[in-house]
């Protein structure tokens, strides 16, 4: 109940500041099982994608997020697992008890959709994307029927750059591209390159333009 309420409040705040809008370019906004894989420049990425999903889709979509971040404080432990219903995975191999891929596949097998950030870390460089981790490929191989949807979040690096506290009100667009699948016999590197290209292709031509 409280989680539901906080969720609506967060979505409303995101809309007020960024007027965030979805561009359903390659898929329809229907509750089909999907893995949304997105670029990652800011901690606000995931809430933005979550906000533009219609409520019935939001409920069956679980963001995959880092346990070390979301369990750090009590507030985060409420917002991450409760409000966003995150699938929490441990990024530190030496400390973890469960295999992250197992947890993600389990969530998929329960019928959930996932939001993942295959770059693994926030992108602080001038390149559009960091190299993808293998997880997306392994997931696509293990559950070939699930649509892998490239999802580009635009403008967030200007709305809330790392180290800033106050978000700037700028318009944010979340673009969903056409789903991709791992092809028969396709290698890891070839697939990850194809996935990254499909994602970058969704980026606006001139994103406001930093000087």
């Amino acid at each position, binding site marked *: 109940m409280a989680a539901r309420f906080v969720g609506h409040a967060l979505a409303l705040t995101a809309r007020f500041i960024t007027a965030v809008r979805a561009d359903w370019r390659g898929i329809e906004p229907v509750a089909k099982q999907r893995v949304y894989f997105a670029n990652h420049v800011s901690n606000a990425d995931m809430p933005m994608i979550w906000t533009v999903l219609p409520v019935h889709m939001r409920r069956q979509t679980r963001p995959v997020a880092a346990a070390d971040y979301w369990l750090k404080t009590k507030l985060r432990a409420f917002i991450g697992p409760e409000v966003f219903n995150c699938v929490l995975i441990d990024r530190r191999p030496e400390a973890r008890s469960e295999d992250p891929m197992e947890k993600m596949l389990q969530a998929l097998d329960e019928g959930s959709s996932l939001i993942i950030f295959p770059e693994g870390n926030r992108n602080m460089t001038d390149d559009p994307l960091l190299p993808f981790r293998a997880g997306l490929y392994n997931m696509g191989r293990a559950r070939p029927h699930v649509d892998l949807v490239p999802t580009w979040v635009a403008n967030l690096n200007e709305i809330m750059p790392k180290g*800033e506290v106050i978000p700037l009100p700028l318009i944010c667009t979340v673009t969903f591209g056409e789903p991709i699948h791992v092809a028969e016999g396709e290698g890891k590197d070839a697939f990850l390159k194809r996935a990254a290209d499909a994602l970058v292709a969704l980026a606006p031509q001139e994103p406001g333009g930093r000087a």
Partner: protein
Amino acid sequence: MDRTTLDILLLSLGVFVLLIALTMLGEALRARVPQGRTNPVVEAFMMRVNSWWALVITLALAVLIGPVGVILLFAFASFAALREFLTYARKARADHLSLALACFVILPLQYLFVALDWTGLLTVFIPVYAFLLLPIVSALRGDASDFLGRVAQTQWGLMICIYCLSLVPALLTFDMPDGSDRSILLIVFFIMVVQFGDLFEYYAGRQFGRRRIAPDLSPKTVEGVIAGVLAAAVIGGFLGWITPFGMMGAAAMAALASFTGLLGSLVFAAIKRDRGVKDWSHLIPGHGGFLDQLDSVIFAAPVFYHVTLFVWG
């Protein structure tokens, strides 16, 4: 019920009748389209009419609430416009704090000055003090690349999205010659003549426009602009009774507002072309963004405000 409220209701009713007529016209056109098909021109028209309903109802409610409603409505419009402008403006990471100050401090302060009727301060606050302060904040972060370009674009955003727009509710501070509270009707008058001028310019320009004013920038034509300004003057004349201008004076003020507004949208066409933008956003279906809807209001507001104050005050 006092006379001002009655007049507001009467005007709203008049516009509602017009919108009902347009909605029925649209539905009639829809009915002529064969079953199972849609005509994109009719649908676009209906989308615009539907947005007009929302805008008219919002404005009517704000005016009925009174000065506070109007000031809050325009403060929100400023915020939405600035959000659209800054999205496409040039900025660097060093500008983050100054832009945040613009949105969350300068903007509310400007509308506070309007609410408090501090006329002296509200006319110099953004053009002088924000103009000096924000570059200081950016400079302290020490990034000199394209500095002048960046601060100039920010200042432009502040001038058009906050300063010019805030001069619409600033009309509330105009002292009516008869000492009444009817200055709020001046805002209704101003918005109506500018928007009707735009509308007539658009459809007249499409129907019989020939000579383009600035062919590389915008489809606006000399014929369209003349039709728009004339229509605004006629409507302004008819609405003269809600203003202190008299009938001829109201027609002249309406023509002036509409003309400056239409020139303003030409400037906005140039800005959009420069930034490679088609619509500023998608927040008003069928119209684009707040800036697309308000471009002429923004340019007409200072002229209308000052002429009202100095000629009729």
